[in-house]
């Protein structure tokens, strides 16, 4: 392992100051579950580790006046999974976090760390993208909000600048008629990362048609996959089995998956078809659908 210093600042302002001064020489540590691995493998050589452990303003989980769920960057996945507030307001968020890794990792890993390590085989990023969540990033230069779906840009790459800190993730409230689900599919142990994960959100209109659908497939390519042309094409249609099958087919055809030990590209294509369909069926069932279910 490299030689480095460790600091534990107590406020966001101090963190931003350190980032501004050290730039790429500094590495933020949230839960440390990813940072520790890459340090040990010698893939990272920072001179300064900046622990966020003591920055209590980052750890909150709350609902604001507008009904948005605000997840602090340092909120542990296990807290998101178990907190009654989250389970009541956005059960799909708790449900997704519960499926990450294993309970030991979830006690340690954080919302911010999970998004920022930008591992292609993660679960929450696909869901957050499908829910239209926004990532709040701050630096001494100012504050910006980034759509979760634009946040990860490639393998282990985000849009963050070296001096930026993610402070929270804002998840908009879901109206009661909306159906949302995240299906994680593992091909090996139950503690494995996903072979693929599908987040699906369906919004019915007053006539029982599909006002809007969101489908994001995670862990099949370097970043979560969303096919706008498919989603735009189905708006206004009945969410029947034929529509679901069509969306699934077009996602399977439209994504060029990678191969890894959890499944070859061929297999992933097959599974995109199966799980997009299954996810949409569950989402439809969860939505307060008024007719249109032929």
């Amino acid at each position, binding site marked *: *392992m490299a030689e480095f210093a460790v600091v534990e600042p107590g406020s966001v302002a101090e963190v931003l100051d350190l980032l501004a001064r050290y730039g790429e020489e500094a590495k933020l540590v949230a839960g440390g579950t990813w940072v520790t*691995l890459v340090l040990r493998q*010698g893939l990272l050589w920072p001179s300064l580790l900046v622990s966020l452990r003591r920055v209590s303003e980052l750890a909150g989980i709350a609902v604001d006046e507008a009904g948005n769920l605000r997840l602090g960057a340092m909120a542990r996945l296990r807290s998101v999974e178990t907190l009654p507030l989250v389970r009541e307001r956005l059960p799909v968020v708790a449900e997704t976090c519960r499926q990450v890794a*294993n309970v030991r990792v979830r006690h340690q890993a954080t919302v911010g760390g999970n998004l920022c390590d930008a591992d292609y085989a993660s679960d929450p990023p696909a869901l957050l993208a499908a829910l239209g969540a926004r990532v709040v990033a701050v630096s001494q230069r100012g504050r910006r909000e980034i759509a979760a779906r634009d946040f990860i840009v490639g393998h282990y790459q985000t849009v963050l600048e070296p001096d930026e800190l993610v402070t929270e993730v804002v998840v908009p409230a879901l109206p009661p008629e909306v159906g949302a689900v995240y299906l994680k*599919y593992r*091909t*090996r*142990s*139950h*503690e*494995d*990362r996903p*072979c693929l994960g599908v987040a699906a959100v369906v919004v019915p209109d007053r006539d029982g048609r599909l006002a809007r659908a969101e489908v994001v497939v995670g862990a099949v390519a370097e970043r979560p996959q969303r096919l706008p042309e498919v989603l735009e094409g189905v708006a206004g249609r009945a969410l029947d089995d034929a529509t679901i099958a069509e969306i*699934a*087919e077009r996602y*399977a055809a439209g994504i060029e998956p990678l191969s890894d*030990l959890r*499944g*070859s590209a061929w*297999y992933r294509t*097959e*599974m995109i*078809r*199966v799980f997009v*369909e299954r996810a949409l069926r569950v989402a439809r069932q969860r939505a307060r659908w008024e007719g249109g279910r032929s």
Partner: protein
Amino acid sequence: MIDAVERVTGRIRFSQDASLPGMLHAAAVRSVVPHGRIARIDTAAALEVPGVVAVVTGEDLRRLPGLRPVYGPQIEDQPVVALDCVRYVGDIVALVAAETLQAAQEAAALVAVECEELPAVFDPLEALEPSAPLLHELEPERPHEGTALYFGIRPQFGTNCCNLFRIRRGDVARGFAEADLVIEETFRTPAIQHVAMEPHAALALWEDGRLTVWSGTQTPFNTRQILAEIFGLPVERVRVIVPPMGGSYGCKVFPRIEPQAALLAYVTGRPVKFVLRRDEEFVTLTRHATVVTIRLGLTRDGRITAKEVRAYWNTGAYADCGPDVARKGGFGIVGPYRIPHVAVDSRCVYTNLPPAGAFRGYAVTQAAWASESMMDIAADALGLDPLEFRLRNLLRDGETFATGETLHDVHFAECLERAAAAIGWEGPWRHELGDGRVRAKGLAVVLKGMTTPSRSEAKVGIDRSGRVTVYSSTVELGQGARTVLAQLAAEALGVPYQEIRVVDPDTARTPFDNRTTSSRSTYMMGNAVRQAALALRERLLRIAAERLEVEQADLELMDGSVRVAGAPASALKFGELVEASRQEALVEHGEFRNQGGLDPDTGQGIASSHWHQGAGAVEVEVDTRTGKVTILHAHASVYAGQVVNRHTAELQNLGNIVFGLGSALFEELVYEQGQLVNPNLSDYLIPSFLDLPERMTHDLVERPGAEIHGLGETALPTIPAAVGNAVARAIGARVTELPLTPERVLRAIRARGGERG
């Protein structure tokens, strides 16, 4: 377990915890090419690192006088540090000793190694092609010098085959001619890793020309012998002490890092500790990958007329105990069946991959995967119930196995019938739940030999305080050996087993034992301990009879004393009897041997002095749209003869089921051009609690008056085979290669023309 409290409170000092003042830490420089000739090693930068005391290369090793630089338990083919060649990605090219682990690892990273790459070979069949690069030049004059050889070995000189074991029984040509039906199939298994929680750890100390090594090893005496040979010492000057281990499952059978730690200690004159990192564990020892082709001759009424087997065991760059794995697998693969004509060619083959060796199940998991899958294929071809087909052919008491030996105390049918009943075999073997989900059941039955010939010795003593001590070289690796041996001594001496002290194996203090392997310890060492304890009992009775002036027959042992039966007032405490004998302690010795051996060219003889017998049965659910297999119920029935400790015996059965399901469903080491792709626990998964079947049941089959039968491994090999058979039944197609990943299962479904999206 007698050490349960120590265990859960973290007070057990494992091998990894061993330390000495002034101790140095070791790190290894490892090859990054699968096969190459070492051109140059530059250690200058490494030696500059503050705290580094020594960097040792093959050249240094060769310059040390009186050292034998190459070792191996069965074939001496493994250098302590690479001499001219590297043979796999992970081979040790140089060793570093430094004041801190960090300095050692930093220096290791700075050793520059230049290699001329040589052609490499990874597949055992390709490795046997005439054009394949040779890994070793085995010579007929010194083909096999290993000290752990207790059987004949037949390398095929000039090839990469380091052992060819054969069985020739009857005449297979005739057997196939008599058959109504002949079927043939090829099966594969991948390399997998043991993933013991505690890694390999050893600490070596030289004092006055004597070597002491503390090491987590299942083989203290083999390790002592091999270290003595490397350093040219009489065995009395080498001492191996074995603290309890945090698991092994075979990966700590035979020396693995002890020669390297001892070499660094020799060169530096300081104690040296060597602990492997997890990624190093993955390239240090694996389970043999296999390719097995079976031909079976069958009659319409469901008899097996002939079996022909060609088995290839990929042993990697060094033989380790691969020759014996090929031998034990060679007869294991015949299965517990009555077959008049048998021909087996079982080859252990070198390739440029990490060495493979002992692994819980020892060859039988791979053997059963092939042979028990084949039994189901045969039953299907004949239109017979797979249970009925097996029962017609299973060996019964007094029948002859393919090795020519007559089997006694035979319970294959009973185990199999119990397992089948446990999962409701009489019900439908397959049923569809709709939505592409199918449930189905599968069976497997195995036989597994125990190391034969072998020997275990023990001492049991009582001191003046009346304390009973068991001296045994059986290693505690979490299986509860200490507890079971204490129990057996306690039974003979009438003391609570919790009060018995069991001394950790120490070649200077505890008597000889072959090794803690092949599920032999409760039986072999158990008998030696029992014998010693009974001898001690006799002696106590004799002394007490003299003192109390009564007949020995009127005495009884109770609560640490001897008394006239029914007369507590007459009790003489053990300690008093020791004093009365004017000794510091009374110590008795016990010894237990088993005899046998096989002719390597015909496989005839005694393969095992008694047999481990077990059956497995599972019910699975297959999602035919994804290929994902879920095990709903797994059951193992294992012949135990006589159970010594029910709790630990049950844990062995359950642990074996868990191990088996990892092998069945997802464990696999993946190599790209010899480079391991998944040397960590994020990319190589083992079963977690959430992976366990909804129902996991088992039974221990006992018989009054029977011998103890080991059961540390028996259930394991049944599981992958039973799962494979259940999956084949569910999908109507056969996956011939482990593990049964969803992708393999889906491909098999598609190949059959089934289910799509």
